[in-house]
């Protein structure tokens, strides 16, 4: 499960640190104590920044870093598609294993396909999803505020 890509992101996280944002959320995984504070900044329909601080295992930390790398700069619908695809991968219980399936996913998920192996470990899936759920939540809040 510890692909080099994951370890790389863990050791050298992208975009870590809290910067200005339109909405902030704090998510906790109560079973293992992983925590993340995450801010989303939108520019119209574009994800301008995702900044975060947190503590947790390599999987949750690397996953936040991958998220930042993947989503910053994307248009919202595309970012949401990536989020959904990542969710699907993580809930696959290791069933997405064939190289061509992973290759197809890689087009959308890029580095994030490295988490395919994590999906086999139910205890760790929540770690990988922590930041992605926080992002979804924060984005919804940011949109609501923009609309208000």
């Amino acid at each position: 499960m510890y692909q080099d890509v994951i370890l790389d992101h863990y050791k050298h996280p992208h975009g870590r640190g809290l910067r200005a944002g339109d909405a902030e959320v704090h998510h906790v995984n109560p079973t293992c104590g992983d925590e993340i504070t995450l801010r989303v900044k939108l520019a119209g329909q574009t994800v301008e920044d995702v900044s975060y601080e947190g503590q947790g295992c390599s999987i949750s930390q690397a996953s936040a870093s991958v998220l930042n790398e993947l989503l910053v700069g994307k248009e919202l619908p595309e970012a949401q598609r990536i989020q959904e695809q990542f969710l699907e991968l993580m809930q696959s219980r290791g069933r997405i294993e064939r190289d061509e399936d992973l290759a197809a996913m890689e087009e959308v998920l890029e580095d994030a396909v490295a988490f395919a192996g994590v999906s086999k470990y139910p205890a760790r899936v929540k770690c990988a999803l922590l930041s992605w759920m926080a992002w979804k939540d924060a984005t919804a809040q940011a949109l609501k505020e923009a609309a208000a």
Partner: protein
Amino acid sequence: MNQLPGLLDTEAIRKDFPILDRTVHDGQKVVYLDNAATSQKPRQVLDALNAYYERHNANVHRGVHVLAEEATALYEGARDKVAAFVNAPSRDEVVFTKNASESLNLVANMLGFADEPYRVDRDTEIVITEMEHHSNIVPWQLLAQRTGAKLKWFGLTDDGRLDLSDLDEVITEKTKVVSFVLVSNILGTHNPVEAIVRRAQEVGALVVVDASQAAPHMPLDVQALQADFVAFTGHKMAGPTGIGVLWGRKGLLDDLPPFLGGGEMIETVSMHSSTYAPAPHKFEAGTPPIAQAVGLGAAVDYLAGIGMAQIEAHEHAITGYALGRLQEVPDLKIIGPTTAEERGAAISFTLGDIHPHDVGQVLDEQGIAVRVGHHCARPVCLRYGIPATTRASFYLYSTPGEVDALVDGLEYVRNFFG
């Protein structure tokens, strides 16, 4: 290293535990260091379960056929064995539950529904400690919520022991019950029973001891403890899942009201009212965990056969050795007492900044099974300002070689994330 004083003949003992031959991750023999979560089961216990189901299975009590009589004799025989194992003055003081959690909830509920002088209500106080397992916290929180009683607790010292400096302020004339863990499942701490019991007796409070991590590992004598209730659980002491024990003083069990209602626990039932059977049956509603009690009986036979004092000595040696070796690992910090004195065989630690989940996972890849997380004792993690720990815990079949494997595994973990 095999020269540690007090070690058991683990080579012989390990032959009794089929799962210890299990290989994981392409052929690595499992190094099972998660004994505080649950122990493995010897062949002797599995044989007792199979013999029960293949030859004697029937519902217990009131049967007039051979199988029912045999099943009843086996079930009640298990009660005799458990009573002897904890030196209970009477077999009728041994109540079979489904686990230690039910045992503790049973006491909490009895006290909530009891009449004076036992009744816990808004004018009274309940005392626990900050190192309790959730199963000895939540039942008392629920009881406090439901009755309005006040929940108080002893804090912890920096080195992982109970802080009893405020003993007389925490346990007061208002205290109705004091419930605490004999050996902590997260810190390993063996708590000083006498001081607490003495103060509780002074104010007339009942004493409940959570012996879940003690009964499997050392001689347990409920009379010497001087407690009023003692709870423990079968699956941690070489027995099956699905069986726990509540020992309680006869007079108390007689006085206190039932908890669950149903078959087996009644004397006579009409639609208008019912009367209850004498203890222990009063507290055993419905078909009991029959096979599981029989299995627990076989487990205590097995443990007693080896000798609880011998098991304690073995674990003491392993724990001392492990504490020493673990402290050689750079950045490793033990959470809990750092020497083997007044201490059980569960050792929690942190390893630098590496999250326990990662420690556990990479150890697992090497075939080493430890537990990570808050170990159902989250207040301890809060107390020491850590999100979680990695915990290695030993039992009668654990070897110095397994300690070495753990230490090597931890070195690998450090390099992996270094």
